[in-house]
C-alpha cells in the first residue's frame, strides 16, 4: 500500500508540489495501478536477464570533428531570466 506519506516523499523526489486534492487522487490512483500490476509477481524471473535496450549497440563512438556550435545568444534565447551571458536563478545558498 502506498500511503499519503509515501506520496509526499515521491513528490519531493520528483520536484512536484501537489495540492491536497492531488495528493489524495494520486494516493488512490497509484494504489489502483500498482495493485493491478501486482500479477507481474506471478512470473519467475530469477534467471532472466533484464532488457534495457533492444538493439545490440555498445559503446557507440564516433570521430570527434570540429563543427559549428550553437551561439551563446541562441542558447540563452529561451531562458526565463538571465544576467548578461549567464542563466539567472533564485538564491541557492
Amino acid at each position: 500500500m502506498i500511503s499519503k506519506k509515501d506520496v509526499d516523499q515521491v513528490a519531493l523526489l520528483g520536484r512536484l508540489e501537489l495540492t491536497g486534492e492531488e495528493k489524495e487522487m494520486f494516493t488512490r490512483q497509484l494504489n489502483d495501478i500498482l495493485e493491478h500490476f501486482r500479477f507481474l509477481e506471478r512470473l519467475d524471473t530469477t534467471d532472466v536477464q533484464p532488457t534495457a535496450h533492444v538493439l545490440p549497440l555498445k559503446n557507440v563512438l564516433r570521430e570527434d570533428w570540429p563543427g559549428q556550435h550553437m551561439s551563446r545568444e541562441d542558447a540563452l534565447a529561451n531562458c526565463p531570466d538571465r544576467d548578461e551571458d549567464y542563466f539567472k536563478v533564485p538564491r541557492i545558498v
Partner: protein
Amino acid sequence: MQLFRQTAHELHSLLINKEISAVELNEAVFDRIASVEEKVGAYLSRIRERALERARVIDEQIRKGEKILPLSGIPVAIKDNMCTDGITTTAGSKILANFVPPYSATVVKKLDAAGAVMVGKTNLDEFAMGSSTENSAFFTTRNPWDTSRVPGGSSGGSAAAVAAGEAVCSLGSDTGGSIRLPASFCGVVGMKPTYGAVSRFGLIAYASSLDQIGPFTRDVTDCALMLNIICGHDPLDSTSADFQAPDYTQFLINDVRGMKIGVPEEYMAEGIAPEVHGLIRKALELLESLGANVEYTTLPHTEYALPTYYLIAPAEASSNLARYDGVRYGLRAEDSEDIIDMFMKTRSQGFGSEVKRRIMLGTYALSAGYYDAYYLKALKVRTLIKEDFDRAFEKYDLLVSPVSPTTAFRIGEKTDDPLQMYLSDVCTISVNLAGIPGMSVPCGFAGGLPVGLQLMGRHFNEGTLLRAAYTFEQNTSYHKEFPAL
C-alpha cells in the same frame, strides 16, 4: 478535383506534368484547413507564409525543368514534439508553451531537404503521454469520422490532419502505440519503424528506450516514400542504428503468396469488440485467399506487457522530464523563496495531471526499496516479451492482429480512469517493448468508424510489412474512403 484528398504520389504526377503548381496545392490544403479546422482541431500552429514561400521555390524548380523529388512541394504536418528551428514547439504542454527551438530535429531537416513543405505543428497528448489527445494542455483534437469521438493518441493531431485532408502526410511518434492507435481510429496508414531506424535527434523525449518517429499517410505507397526520407543512421543520435536503409518502394509488390502469417491468439481473445474481431478475421481470410499461409500462434507473455510498459515508460519519463526546471527554457513560476521552491512551483504549474501521474509512478518505481520489485522486474519481463517475438519470427514472416480492441471512443469516456485509458494500448505496446516495426492499415468500418489491422515484423523488416500492407490495400478500397466533414 479535390487536391486535398489525393495521395503524395498522385500529386507528384500532377506537379511534374504541370497540371497543378505547388503553390496551388498548398493553398488548397490551407483552404481545407480553414474550412474544417474548427471542427477537427488538428493543429497547434500553422505556418502559411513560410509554406507558400517554400512552394514557390519548388514551382521555380519545376519551371526550370529541374527534377523534383517524390515529396517535393507536398504539404506535410509535424507532431509538435519535434523541434522546428524558429517555430514554437510545445509538446502539448504549458511548460513549453513559448519554447522556440534554436535547431530542427533531424527528421524535420530531412523532410525539408526532400522538398516537403511543412504546413503546421499538430496537437498531441502532453509529452506524448496519452491515447486520445485529451491530455493536451491546449485542446482535444476530434476524430474526423465522428467529431464527438477522440482521434486516438498521442499523435492524434497528425492522424486527424491526414484523415481530414489538412495535410497529405505527417509525422508522429510512437512509444506505446501513439502512431498506430490514431492511424487505426482515423482510418489512415501509420508505421512505427524498428527502434533505431529513424533518428530521434530533436524529438522531445518521453521514454527513450521505446520512442520512435514514423509517418502517417493515405496509402502504403506514400508510407514507403516517407520512410525513404526519414530512415537511416544519424551520428547525432547515439541510439540510431548503423544500417543502410533500403529503397522502401521496392517492397510495393502486390503478392503475398507463400508469406507465413501468424495470428497471436492472445490478441484475438475476449476483450476485442465483436465488430473489430469480425473485420480482422475478414482481413485474414482475404490475405489467405491471396496465397498467404495464415495460422494461429501464441505470444504467451502478452498479458504482462501492459504493466511492464507502464512501469518502464514512466520510469524513463520521470528521468527525461527532470530537465524542465525553469532555468534554461520554458515556464518559470513567479515568487519563489529559493531554487528548490522555484523547481517545484514551476513543475507543478507547468505539467498537467497525466504527466504528474507518470512522474509520480516512475519516481516511485525507481526509488530505493522498490527498484527491484518494480523497475528491474519490468526490465526482466521485457526480455520474456521480446523472446516471445523472437520465437514467433522463427516460424512466421509477419504477425497480424487488431491495433485496438475497439473503435474510437467518445471524448470524456475514459478521462476519469487512467487504468481504462492505459488499456487502450493493450495491442500495441508489446511492439515497442520488443523494438520491432509495427503498422496500422485500414481494414474496414464498424458503425461508420475506421478499424486498423496491425502488422508486426522482425527488426528492420519494414519491407515485409509494406509488401503485405500493399497487397491488402490493392485488393480492398477502405483507404479511398473519406470522412464527410
